């Protein structure tokens, strides 16, 4: 199991690095590539965690996970970016430097939280739990701090990746049907958000969600 531990550590490190890249990149295309890398990394996790489950199950989950998160999502997003012809700069509300600093802060916070989660951590994988939580927080931050609808979709994917990692770390094996249902939902969610973002850009000639403020009390 030693190699598998080393591998898991490497994967977690990659996950955290992609988080920081997403916070730092200034162009949407680069962010899409970072999300693709993160998707592949997260998709690999069931294979690394493997222990105890039948091989076919692990293989199926890894294939579907990597396929959806690492290939299908980035393709949908690149297609969206091609179709809508918006400017490709990220234009965040919070500067890149501060974003990265907050990302590092999120990692520290998640480490602290996972050290408090007694019974879960005793099981195993404290490291993975904190990586999952940090990814989730970064996803949330991307959703609230970015202007373009595409960035919010990116943030949602990152959030999903965080939840997925957290789930693998805390529960180990959720029943396959549930796991596939969740992946299916994530897939449809991103698909539908892309269509909605496309309609928004057609209707408004922009996709800056902060300008969607006509409905309020």
């Amino acid at each position, binding site marked *: 199991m030693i190699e598998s531990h080393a591998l898991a550590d490497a994967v977690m490190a990659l996950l955290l690095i992609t988080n920081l890249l997403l916070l730092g990149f200034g162009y949407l295309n680069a962010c899409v590539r970072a999300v693709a890398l993160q998707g592949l990394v997260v998709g690999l996790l069931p294979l690394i965690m493997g222990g105890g489950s039948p091989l076919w199950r692990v293989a199926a989950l890894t294939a579907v996970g990597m396929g959806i998160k690492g290939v299908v999502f980035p393709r949908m997003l690149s297609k969206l970016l091609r179709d809508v012809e918006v400017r490709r700069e990220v234009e965040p509300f919070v500067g890149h430097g501060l974003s990265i600093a907050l990302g590092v802060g999120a990692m520290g916070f998640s480490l602290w939280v996972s050290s408090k989660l007694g019974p879960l951590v005793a099981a195993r994988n404290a490291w993975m739990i904190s990586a999952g939580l940090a990814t989730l927080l970064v996803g949330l931050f991307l959703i609230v701090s970015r202007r373009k609808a595409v960035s919010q979709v990116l943030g949602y994917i990152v959030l999903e990746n965080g939840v997925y990692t957290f789930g693998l770390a805390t529960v180990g094996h959720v029943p396959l049907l549930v796991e596939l*249902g969740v992946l299916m939902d994530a897939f449809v969610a991103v698909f539908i*958000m892309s269509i909605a973002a496309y309609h928004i850009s057609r*209707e408004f000639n922009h996709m800056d969600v902060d300008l969607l403020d006509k409905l309020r009390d």
Partner: protein
Amino acid sequence: MTAKAFIRVARWGGITLAALAAAAACVVLRRGPVLFADGWFALDALSAFHLGVLALVFGSASWFAEPYFEGTLTPSQARRFAALWFGAFCAMVLVLCCGNLGLMWVGIEATTLLTAFLICTHVTPLSLEATWKYLVVCSVGVAFAFMGTLLVAASAHGLQLDASSTLLWTQLRERAVFLHPGTMKLAFLFLLVGYGTKAGLAPLHGWLPDAHSQAPAPVSALFSGFMLNASFYCLLRILPIAEAATGNVGWARGLLVFFGLASIVVAACFIVFQHDSKRLLAYHSVEHLGIIALAAGLGGLGTFAALWHTLNHALCKALAFFCAGRLGQAYGSHDLRRMAGALRAGRLWAAAFFASLLALIGVAPFAIFMSELQILRAAAERRAFIAMAVFLLGVSVVFVGALKHALVMAWGEPVQRPEPEKESVGTHVLVWGMLGMLLVLGLWLPTPLSDAMRAAAGIVEGRP
């Protein structure tokens, strides 16, 4: 196929599906719980009761869809509406039928995704804005509910359940006292935030007024009449498990009371200043979901009242949205001030809207008054006097605020004179039938219904 044909398919298909759901609910209520596929699918009195409410709302909204959409949709819009309409129903049935908390989550997320494009059946900038907010807020909110579901599974580590039964509520309910209490508390918090967002509990209700006001009326009716309750149903499922795991000290119930009161107060503040008829109804949804949460949190008699209120609110709100939608079409605006004097002009929809608003704010002898009275009794029984005072204050503010709008709508000085309405006999039957049910339920509760609600309340109370 023409647009008309698609809408007709949606109507008759919807009514058939609703009848089937109602029949299934009756069978379960008479024969007792049904389990199949190793407990992955499970129906008991609580699910059957909600299935019945769903059948009522979905059937009447399908019935109403044909007169409402007549001549306003292109064939492709009508086809998309029909497909998503059935899809939304299936997702809600999945939520009610599955015995696995993970699959239940999949169902709730599926309702978000399938209903998103129902909001922009008519594509306008405002409806797109509402769709986007709904998609992002609900998807992110519900992701928290999934974290909660995972934590429930984690809290069951000590039970040595095999993988496929870790998340079955049938299994967890029986062994709830052995769940890890700390983890379960964390899990309940996540679930409350997640499903609470979808159920529209304040302060997580941000998406709700936008989505309800921009969606076409049958969709708003389904949202308000049942989709919010579908999400709240998930909380009712987890409530007895969380309570038993944390030692039955009322920790989880206290949280529900808090969120319920917050929703009532927030909704009351917005209702007073709201002139858009559909947004007004949307804030009423926040208020009533708050009342349901409060009642469920009080427990005892309150649980029964919460379920009764769910039924009353669903019926009343579906009708109110039908009326607001039709009046909006006739007047070309949803502003209540532009509909001034609608009742004096002798319109069916204005009369029904006025009556349903009265029912909504709790005028006797409509059913909502009776269930609210029960909730007061439950609060008095629990000696929860602060909750009672806040509840009464909120409901009174809503009463005065909404009555003011309703009176202007009914008897104000007319601003415009729309075309006279031509409604079919079927529509008259629908409207008067629903109003009649609200009145009858206020005066007399049939024994089979009260038995069903008592059985369902027993499940929420943790007495299987």
